[in-house]
C-alpha cells in the first residue's frame, strides 16, 4: 500500500485552473500499463494523496499523464511541482471503459468539464483502431469557452473526417460562435444510430443524471451506457469505506459502471 516514486517530467497548463502532469517511474520498470478510465492515487510529499484519472494514451506506456483541476490543498501543491520533482504514485485502480466491447458499434462520448480527462484515453484507444468502430462522436460541455480542455487537440480531432466533435458552453463570451446550452442539448441532434450505440459519460453527477435520461430518450439502451462516478477516496483498495455509493465501492467496483447497474442509486439523493 506504499506508493512508488515518480519523476515529474513536464507540467503543462491547460486552462486557468487545470494543468497536465507528465510522470515517469523513478525506479523499477520504466513502463506503466493501464486501461482507459482507470485512475491513480497521487501523493504530494507531506501534503496528501488524491485520486486522479489517467488522461494519456494507453498505447504510450512511457509517460503517464494526469490532468488536474486546482481545487484545494493537494491539487494546489501539485500545480507547484517542477520537472524532476518526485511524487508518490499507487495504481492503476478501478474499472475501465470497455472499448473492446464497443467494436462494430457507434460510440458517443459525453463529457462535462474536467470529465473529459478520464475519457481521453478511451478516445486514443478507439482512434488507434478506428476501422473497428462505426461513427465516433464527442459531445463536450464546459461552463465557458475558456474552460475547454485540450483545445488544440480538439481542433485537430474536429478536422478529422472520422470523428465528430461538438462543443457547447453554459455561458458564451464574445468571439464564441459555437453552441450555447448544457451538453444534453447536443444529444437529440448528434449523428449516431441509437440502436447500435455505446455511450460513455463523465461529468458532474447532475450532468450524468440528465445525460443518461437524454440518451435513453434517443433510444440508447441502459446497458449500452457507461458512467464514471466520483466519491471521496482515501485508500482506493476497498478499506476506508469512503467511496461507498449504495452497495458499491467506487474505487474497486467503479469508477466506471454500466448505467443499468447503478441507475437506482444515481437517481436518489445523498447516496
Amino acid at each position: 500500500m506504499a506508493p512508488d516514486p515518480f519523476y515529474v517530467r513536464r507540467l503543462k497548463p491547460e486552462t486557468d485552473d487545470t494543468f497536465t502532469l507528465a510522470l515517469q517511474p523513478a525506479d523499477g520498470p520504466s513502463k506503466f500499463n493501464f486501461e482507459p478510465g482507470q485512475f491513480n492515487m497521487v501523493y504530494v510529499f507531506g501534503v496528501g494523496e488524491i485520486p486522479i484519472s489517467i488522461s494519456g494514451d494507453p498505447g504510450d506506456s512511457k509517460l503517464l499523464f494526469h490532468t488536474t483541476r486546482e481545487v484545494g490543498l493537494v491539487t494546489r501543491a501539485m500545480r507547484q511541482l517542477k520537472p524532476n520533482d518526485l511524487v508518490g504514485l499507487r495504481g492503476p485502480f478501478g474499472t475501465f471503459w470497455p472499448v473492446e466491447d464497443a467494436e462494430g458499434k457507434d460510440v458517443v462520448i459525453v463529457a462535462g468539464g474536467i470529465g473529459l480527462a478520464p475519457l481521453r484515453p478511451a478516445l486514443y484507444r478507439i482512434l488507434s483502431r478506428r476501422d473497428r468502430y462505426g461513427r465516433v462522436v464527442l459531445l463536450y460541455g464546459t461552463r465557458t469557452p475558456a474552460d475547454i480542455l485540450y483545445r488544440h487537440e480538439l481542433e485537430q480531432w474536429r478536422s478529422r473526417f472520422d470523428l465528430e466533435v461538438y462543443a457547447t458552453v453554459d455561458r458564451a463570451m464574445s468571439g464564441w460562435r459555437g453552441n450555447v446550452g448544457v451538453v444534453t442539448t447536443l444529444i437529440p441532434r448528434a449523428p449516431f444510430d441509437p440502436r447500435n450505440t455505446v455511450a460513455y459519460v463523465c461529468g458532474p453527477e447532475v450532468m450524468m443524471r440528465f445525460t443518461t435520461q437524454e440518451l435513453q430518450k434517443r433510444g440508447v439502451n441502459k446497458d449500452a451506457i457507461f458512467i464514471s462516478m466520483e466519491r471521496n477516496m482515501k485508500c482506493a483498495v476497498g478499506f476506508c469505506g469512503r467511496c461507498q455509493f449504495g452497495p458499491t465501492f467506487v474505487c474497486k467496483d467503479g469508477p466506471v459502471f454500466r448505467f443499468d447497474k447503478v441507475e437506482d442509486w444515481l437517481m436518489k439523493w445523498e447516496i
Partner: protein
Amino acid sequence: MSMPMFSLTECFILSQKSFPRLFEVLQAKGYQVIGPTVRDGAVVYEQLSSVDELPCGWQDDQGGGTYRLKRRADNALFGYGVGPHSWKKLLHLPAYCLWSAQTENGKLQIAPGDGPAPKLAFLGVRSCELHALAIQDKVFLRGKYVDPAYRQRRENALIVAVNCAQPSGTCFCVSMNTGPKASFSFDLALTEVIESGQHFFLVETGSPQGAELLGQITEQKATQKDKDAAARVVANAAAHMGRTMESAGIKDLLYRNYDHPRWEDVAARCLSCANCTMVCPTCFCTTVEDATDLAGKQASRWRKWDSCFTMDFSFIHGSSVRASTKSRYRQWMTHKLATWFDQFGTSGCVGCGRCISWCPVGIDITEEARVIRQNDGITLTKEQVHENQKP
C-alpha cells in the same frame, strides 16, 4: 430454541482454582493476554497480567443510552455483557502508520510503517464478537486487496472465547444468528458454570493449537452432567436477550424504504456524534492524516478510524455528498443491515447492542428497523418533502 450442543469435540473441565494456569501457559508461550477488566466504570479490553484483573463479580445494566456496572451475587469472572471496547482495536488499529517517506538529495524513499505484529491472546471473546471478527476478515482479507497489517495481527491472534451467561439489556444476537454460543473460529471456548456450590469452566477446543494448550492445563474430561449444566447456561442466555430484531428480508425492506419518513424522525434525534460507529465491532471506515517533520524531509501517513457520520467523510467538490444527518444515519443503518450483504455476503450487524447503549440519546437500531417495517413503503407527501427541503 433448541439446547446448544456440546458434543462435537471432547470437552474438558477447568476448575476455578486452576483457571490461573491458563494465564501462565499463555504467557509462557509468549502471548500477551488481552482481556476484560474494569476501568472508569466500564468493562474494557486491556492487556492483563493476571486473573486478578478480570471483572470478578461485576455485571452491567445496559439500555438505550445507558451503561452502568453493578455487583453480582456471585464471583463470576465473565458475568458481564459486552462493553464499549471491541477486539477490532487490536487488529484494525485506531491509528496506524501506513508508511513513511523521506527525501534525501532529491530522492524519495518510501518505507512501510508497520512493525512486527505482537502475539496476542484474546481472552473472553463473545460469540457475536467472533462473528464480527469474521466480518472484518471479509473486508480486509477476502477481497481483491489484502491489508497486510491486519493479516499479520489476525494470524498471530489466539482466541479464547467465553460463552455469554448474562446478555445485556441491548443484546440481540439471537435475532442475528450470531450467538450466544461460540460456534466457530476459536482456539478454545469456555462456558463458566456457577451452580449448586460449584464454579468451573467447561472447555471446548476449536483448533490443534487450542488442544495443545489445554493439554498443559487440564486433563479432566467433562461428564454429561457438566455438559448439560453448560448447555443450560447458554440456553438461559439465549432466553434473556434484551432486544430483538426481525432480520428476515431486512435488506430489501431498507432498499425499498429510502424515502421513508422515519429517516427524518431519527435525524431529528441523532447528534451525528459517531459514537455508534466507534463502538461497533464491524465498522471499518478510516481517514488518513499526513505528518511532516519541521525540516520537511520526513513525512508519514497515518490511517485513523473515521465515521460516516462526519461531514468530511463524503466531501467532494467543496461540499458533502451526504450533507444531512438524515442521509448519514440512513447510510450507516443501511450499510449495517443491507448494502453489507451485497458487498460482503453477510450482515454488517451482529446484534451486540453497543450502538444502542453508547448512543447519548439512546437511538436503537432495532427500534428504527421495527418502525420502518411496520410502515413499510410509506413515503412523505410532496408537500412534506417540500417542507423538509426548506432551509
